[in-house]
């Protein structure tokens, strides 16, 4: 079971290390992690994706909640939510491949944010699965296109509708 945990955390030195340390210490898996201050500068919001059975996810939530600097924890996957991740990918594409890569980027609604004679740098936003599909599409395109570099931000998310994670 995949889980996206949204965590409100006191914006204090060392708070993030407690969260990350907890995962290492209790043998939980972190698939992705993003963190930044919120509109309230005393709070950081952290989005963390992990996986495990229901018991394990429940333990992870409780253990996170136990950390003194954690203010709130929710699992976005428990209800309708919006999740997004940003990908930057640098592809070497020459000859026929240039058109093919650009077409794929268009189909996935990616944007080309940097160009050289040999490369494209493409930015793509969406749920993680869409990003995976795009990378695979470039790999499998059958033309002379080589992925040089991929960087992803990890998942950020919000509950849909009136659901709000706040103090």
């Amino acid at each position: 079971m995949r889980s996206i945990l949204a965590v409100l955390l006191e914006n204090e030195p060392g708070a993030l290390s407690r969260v990350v340390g907890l995962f290492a210490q209790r043998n939980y898996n972190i698939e992705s992690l993003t963190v930044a201050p919120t509109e309230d500068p005393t709070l950081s919001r952290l989005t963390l994706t992990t996986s495990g059975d229901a018991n394990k996810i429940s333990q992870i939530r409780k253990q996170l909640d136990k950390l003194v600097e954690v203010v709130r924890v929710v699992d976005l996957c428990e209800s309708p939510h919006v999740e997004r991740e940003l990908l930057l990918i640098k592809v070497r594409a020459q000859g026929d491949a240039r058109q093919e890569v650009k077409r794929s980027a268009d189909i996935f609604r990616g944007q080309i944010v940097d160009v050289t004679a040999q490369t494209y740098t493409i930015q793509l936003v969406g749920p993680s699965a869409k990003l995976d599909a795009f990378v695979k599409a470039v790999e499998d395109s059958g033309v002379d296109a080589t992925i040089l570099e991929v960087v992803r931000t990890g998942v950020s998310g919000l509950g849909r509708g009136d659901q709000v994670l706040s103090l």
Partner: protein
Amino acid sequence: MAEMLSGGDMLIRALQDEGVEYIFGYPGGSALHIYDAIFRQQKIEHILVRHEQAATHMADGYARSTGDPGVVLVTSGPGATNAITGIATAYMDSIPMVVISGQVPRDLIGTDAFQETDMVGISRPVVKHSFMVRDASEIPAVVKKAFHIATTGRPGPVVIDVPKDTTDPSATYEYEYPSEVNLRSYKPAFEGDRTQVDRVVQALLSAKRPVFYVGGGVIQADAETPLRELVKATRGPVASTLMGLGAYPGSDKQSLGMLGMHGTYEANMAMHEADLILALGARFDDRVTNNPDKFSPKATIVHLDVDPASVDKIISSDIALVGDAQWVLNTLWEAYQHQESQRDEAARKKQQQDLDQWWAQLEEWRSAHGLNHNLVPQKDQSILPQLAVQTLYRVTEGEAFITSDVGQHQMFAAQYYHFDEPRRWINSGGLGTMGFGLPSAMGVQMGNPEAVVACVTGEGSFMMNMQELSTCLQYGLPIKIINLNNQALGMVKQWQDMQYGGRHSQSTYSDSLPDFKTLVEAFGHIGIRVSEAMELDAAMEEAFSEKNKNRLVFVDVWVDPHEHVYPMAIKGGAMSDMILSKTQGGAS
């Protein structure tokens, strides 16, 4: 106008305002401004140990026996790292403790300065929380928060790392100790859910084979009174964890003694056959449950804990109660009395018959394979370690504070000394820290100056912190040390006997043991050596005699080195799967 104090003075003043009696510690460079502040005041006594690990265990023993948080002060670097074992020990057993560590000045942090270590980082997995002082002005608030966090909810150790320059006497600040603390991210549950309490009462009123599975949480919350009322009224048997001994009187008939890996036959059988288990401030540790998949197949599980993360961690509960054990047990006791009085006579009579049957079964187990508490010394025979504990129990009339180290002697003490009151049995249950016994006994004695305090230890554990004999002399601590000397690392050797074909890899050292009698005499104390069973009584009587009331006495008891601890759980089995002796395996 508020008083102007330096950071170091504010720190000590804040501890005074927190009501701290003792600081257990060891000075060093980064802590010297703080030590100077200690020198210039009278209210708090500082106890100088011989190794920082012992300071943490002393503070721990003080905390366990009094219920008040223990306070430790160490310097940076090695002072801080030496404290880690004691902090981890307190963390595993949820003991309230505040550890103040000196740190290099702020402008040197991160430069690999002399005696620098990242104390907040290195202690992170074994603390409830930690602080680094960023500015001297925040010292009073940090101290207030540290004590609040250490002592509320599920208690635990809190570290305050104090860079040396924040305690510098040349800068002063307005001192005011905060009257309250409010942390938006830390609000431990105190009151439990009343509807859940009612469900527990219903379960209790319909139980045929109830068991109270009582852990250290009941002791931490000082909840023994409602527990005892409830146990008496419901006629349930009590199976105690290693940490829970004393919450319910061990010498009472309704006590089945300790459960778990080396628990009594009757306690483990009761857990396996129960139809209702009330887990009270206990956490279904692997040393209790054995194989969780085979755990108590017929029981409805009620789990009371102050820590929501303990509930459903190992064993899924049918009724969960999160809250302070004292609040919950008081509420439960009231609700039980009310609902019990409402039920009709037929239902009451029916349950009493069920309980009669249950007690008949429990007594049958107890008489078949229960521990023999009436051991008799035999002429020309070596001393059984169990007999040594039984003798200690008799000579101290069951009223001593007993600390222990870790290993066979610990299990023998837990099995053979009946604890009738909480906070009398002090041992490292979760972490299993050898070297805990002597320093924790010192902390117990500081916190309970008039009490009889004995440390049941083994020669292996004792030698891990024996330097503290010097501290005992300095502060006149009249501890009695009962050294069950089997000339080996007994528990390791037992496992090697049972599971490794008797290959005693690195568990024996009989050719190189010191003469403990001479050793303790060199430290200025009294040493007694006894190796004949018939002389045990006299040796123990002498140790606890009036003339030695104010002296530390070390009784080196040479015990039968071949003795094993039984019962012993069979690995991977249910709680009912136990080896009962060297010749009786797997009775269930």
